[in-house]
């Protein structure tokens, strides 16, 4: 009950955000957080619920951006371009999954990294198709039902709608028998096989779902910047997305969203004071892995609980004494 109330309250706050946060600069940051949160949620399906850490998701994310930008440049309408882009991303996800699901653990990570690098290499080097390092511009944002999304406020609300759709889909997915069986393949793959589940197929479908959501995030990334360059597909982007997932806490719904907010805000705050964002990113990465491996949200909860227990123990001791 409290959970639902909190969710409704959060939606209310997010939906009214452009009305009380009047500065467009902050509204744009909020849009970015939502876009990156979608990518983090996508990666979380694999890294969190399936126990398969992918370092190639920026490839799928950027591929959706490129596919949409190229389709629009080729004369397609925005809706057609978006559908084409998501279809292409699904196909790429299927190929990724076919090749990488031959293994788990570190090998899975390496294969996804290599596959991501191939897509990056295509974006970077196939200059006649992708315009290389100069990237591709998008002339205008789409205007669904004739509503222009050119203003930061309108774009934010459209992104929020997509974001809520993704979160709802994730909620349903996590609570579904399929979500439970995916967690089963993470914790006890052999037992799941013995029980008659097709572990490979479960992981494959999870990969497709994850790729699709990453593609949706990629579309909004393109619409936000109206530009996409090979950097979107780089290892740095994959690593950033992974940092969002693990900093917030893998295998939870709120964790990747909190992680995305944290990383995006830090990126903006850090870039206002220092040039060295990558140094900060790397340092946080190392610090979180060393000191709070379960993520900031569960880590903070653990600290808080430990503190409360200590206080209670002290109170009990005082009472006895």
């Amino acid at each position, binding site marked *: 009950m409290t959970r639902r109330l909190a969710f409704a309250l959060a939606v209310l706050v997010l939906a009214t955000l452009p009305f009380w946060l009047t500065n467009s600069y902050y509204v744009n940051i909020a849009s970015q957080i939502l876009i990156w949160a979608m990518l983090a949620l996508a990666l979380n399906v694999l890294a969190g619920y399936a126990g398969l850490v992918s370092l190639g998701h920026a490839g799928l994310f950027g591929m959706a951006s490129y596919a949409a930008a190229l389709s629009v440049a080729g004369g397609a309408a925005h809706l057609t371009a978006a559908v084409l882009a998501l279809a292409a991303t699904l196909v790429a996800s299927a190929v990724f999954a076919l090749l990488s699901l*031959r293994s788990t*653990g570190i090998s899975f*990570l390496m294969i996804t990294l290599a596959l991501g690098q191939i897509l990056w*290499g295509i974006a970077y*080097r196939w200059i006649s198709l992708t315009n290389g390092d100069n990237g591709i511009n998008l002339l205008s944002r789409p205007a669904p039902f004739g509503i222009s999304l050119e203003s930061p406020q309108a774009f934010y609300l459209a992104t929020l709608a997509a974001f809520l759709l993704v979160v709802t889909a994730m909620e349903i997915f996590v609570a579904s028998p399929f979500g439970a069986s995916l967690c089963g393949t993470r914790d006890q793959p052999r037992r799941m096989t013995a029980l008659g589940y097709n572990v490979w197929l479960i992981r494959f479908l999870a990969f497709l779902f994850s790729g699709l959501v990453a593609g949706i995030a990629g579309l909004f990334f393109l619409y936000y910047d109206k530009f996409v360059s090979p950097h979107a597909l780089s290892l740095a982007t994959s690593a950033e997305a992974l940092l969002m997932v693990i900093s917030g806490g893998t295998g939870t719904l709120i964790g990747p969203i909190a992680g995305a907010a944290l990383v995006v805000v830090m990126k903006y705050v850090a870039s206002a004071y220092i040039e060295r964002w990558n*140094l900060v990113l790397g340092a946080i990465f190392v610090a979180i892995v060393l000191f709070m491996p379960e993520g900031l949200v569960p880590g903070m909860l653990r600290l808080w609980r430990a503190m409360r227990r200590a206080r209670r123990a002290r109170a009990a001791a005082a009472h006895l004494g």
Partner: protein
Amino acid sequence: MPNTIALALGGSGAEWTVPAMTLWLLLAINSITLGGLLFLLSAGFSLIFGLMRIPNLTHGSFFMLGAYLGVSFLSAGLDFWTAALASAVAMATIGGLIERLLLRRLAGNALAQVLVTLGLSFMIADICLMIWTGDPVQIETPPALRGAVPIASVVFPAYRLAIALIAVVIAGMLWLMLDRTRLGAMIRAGVDDAPMARVVGIRVGRLFSIIFCLGAGLAGFGGVMGAPILSVYPGLDADMLPLALIVVILGGTGSLVGAFVGSFIVGFLYNFGQALFPELAYVILFLPMLAVLVIRPQGLFGRQA
């Protein structure tokens, strides 16, 4: 950027008017040079992977940082070979510190170790950018090797031959170390079955440190050796790491022969891919790796896990 290696070919349009035979030969020499450099990089990468079961994602950074340190040592007045050795020693120390202070704390948690190496690679890249700025630096070829060597009516650039020769010598030394010494036997035991090696009294933890120092040192040395050809620039790390990754997937983890053969395969694929299909060079590079993954997942020279 990656096409530096192709530019080192000559780059000017006049290149293409030379007789076809010579062009192929030039490409082949460049491939062998790159193969030698890749071996210096990936021998350590492969041994670390074989022993510690983690891909060390800072390995490309070791190569780049080693090259930058070489630049600084050279400008401090050292000659080329002393600078290369000093850089190797410095990188071995840094690698040892990373293993001791960070990776050891996460023993048994491979994923956390990989993430730490990834985080470190971002930090090293940014620190290099801070110290040596964003402009590419070119190291001069050592004077003794500036000329060309005529072999059977064809003229070979001496420095490129020297790199290939050094790679072969180091490969031989590594092989002797692994195959003939007590330390080598312990390392092989650790690669084959680390828990069992522990049981028979081998201090596998100490092997980790040794291998990490060795790998980082070789990568740093390779960075300085490559600098006259590739030059040193921000992003060199990100260019080299995927190549090492392909070498090891092709050759098999923990296999010295695999790293050697894989390095030259990748060297040839890269240079010929660049020359023949410049736009798809990257795809061509990764296709054999995908084929190996599908047909022989343990790599050409790796053993079935």
